[in-house]
């Protein structure tokens, strides 16, 4: 995972006496459950980048991804008291995000977002993202990522969610099973099916790596 995907801890005042990210996150969750809005916003700062990129790759639309990310955090805030501390907060948050994305994808007209709009959506994504490419290598990297995002749109939403959690969020099979709330065997089955589609879509560009 790159530096960009790592959560940044902005509020050092809250984390003063805590030694690790996990402990700090637990404290923020506990404070949020007591109604501390500031503590919850620390959780937002920590996870917003992962959640936004998950929704962006799942929905392939920057505006919709932004709205969905906001909805995910709002839903998390409203239900934070229901969160059980024996589970990981990230697992719970990913579950909310994946369910929101799948819900939006199910409401979309079938097929429109896959083949016809793939390139157009990617252009919209590229135009809205801040351009950080300053030399040829970065431009190539951005093109490659654009290709991956476009190829993901050819997957079924459930398969896309599993690939997203496996390759981009780097969760284990068990963690993905906990997020999706399905058996590990089902997760593997979806992962291999999705990977096969991606191999056909991205195989021709293997030399770029």
């Amino acid at each position, binding site marked *: 995972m790159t530096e*960009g*995907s790592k959560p940044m801890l902005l509020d050092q005042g809250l984390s003063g006496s805590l030694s690790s990210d996990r402990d700090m996150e637990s404290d923020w969750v506990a404070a949020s459950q007591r109604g501390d*809005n500031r503590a919850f916003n620390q959780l937002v700062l920590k996870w917003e980048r992962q959640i936004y990129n998950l929704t962006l790759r799942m929905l392939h639309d920057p505006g919709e991804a932004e709205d969905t990310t906001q909805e995910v955090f*709002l839903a998390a805030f409203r239900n934070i008291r229901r969160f059980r501390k024996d589970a990981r907060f990230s697992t719970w948050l990913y579950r909310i995000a994946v369910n929101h994305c799948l819900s939006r994808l199910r409401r979309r007209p079938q097929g429109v977002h896959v083949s016809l709009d793939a390139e157009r959506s990617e252009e919209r994504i590229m135009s809205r*993202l801040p351009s950080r490419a300053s030399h040829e290598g970065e431009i190539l990297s951005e093109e490659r990522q654009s290709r991956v995002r476009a190829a993901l749109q050819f997957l079924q939403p459930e398969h896309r969610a599993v690939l997203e959690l496996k390759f981009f969020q780097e969760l284990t099979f068990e963690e993905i099973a906990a997020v999706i709330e399905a058996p590990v065997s089902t997760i593997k089955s979806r992962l291999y099916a999705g*990977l096969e589609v991606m191999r056909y879509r991205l195989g021709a560009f293997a030399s770029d790596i």
Partner: protein
Amino acid sequence: MTATCREYKSYIPRAILGDLSQEEQKALDQHLAECSPCNREHRMYGDTVRQLSAGQNVPVPRHFFVYPEESLGTPWHAFLRMSRAWQAATATVLLALGFASLLAISRLQIRSEDGALVLAFGTLPERKPPAPQAPQMDTSALEARILKAAAESSRQDNLEFLRTLRAEMARSNKAIGREQRALLERAINNAELRMGQLVSTTAANLERKTDRSVQEVYRKVSLERARDLAAVDNRINLLAINGEVKSTQTDAILATLLQVAELRMQ
């Protein structure tokens, strides 16, 4: 691609993700060393996974803070934010209210009464007796009663008058002869009969003409009665005079006959 290749092809993605047993991995490695198509397939899967894993997260376009006013949400969200105990208490209260409402609605009765809706839970109250109204003047009945009373009074007055007259006649009859008495008797009977007819006619007329005022009717009855009484009085006077004249004539005839008889006897 052979049947063996197809079998090993299913191993490739699992091998890429480290999901093969040692035996399966060993068999696949042996096959890949001998089969170039499968080897190429394995390489392409590897490249695909590397492309996926090389994906970077883009920066967020903005922060997604949740503000207190955003978190208010709907009543349902407020309910979801409650603790289990409060949720149970709220649900119990709402269920009780719902049950009470249903019970009330099931027992609600509505009745339209005097242009207004009467609502009651359970049995509707008895209909109120109509408010006592100011007694209405039954003018026609009153007129009829007055007319009847007037007629009755008139009749009694007439009868009393006739009784007095009869008594007077009886007294005067003692002084007059049989024929004169019979004549007077007939006149009185006629007068009585006519009087009765007059009263009946007047009463009938009064009943038919209920639209006339009582005073006018009464005045007419009184007038009729006075006129009849005057007529009867005149008649009686006439009879009395005639009786006296006839009595005088009879006496004169008798006196003449006595003189004639006396002259013959002389």
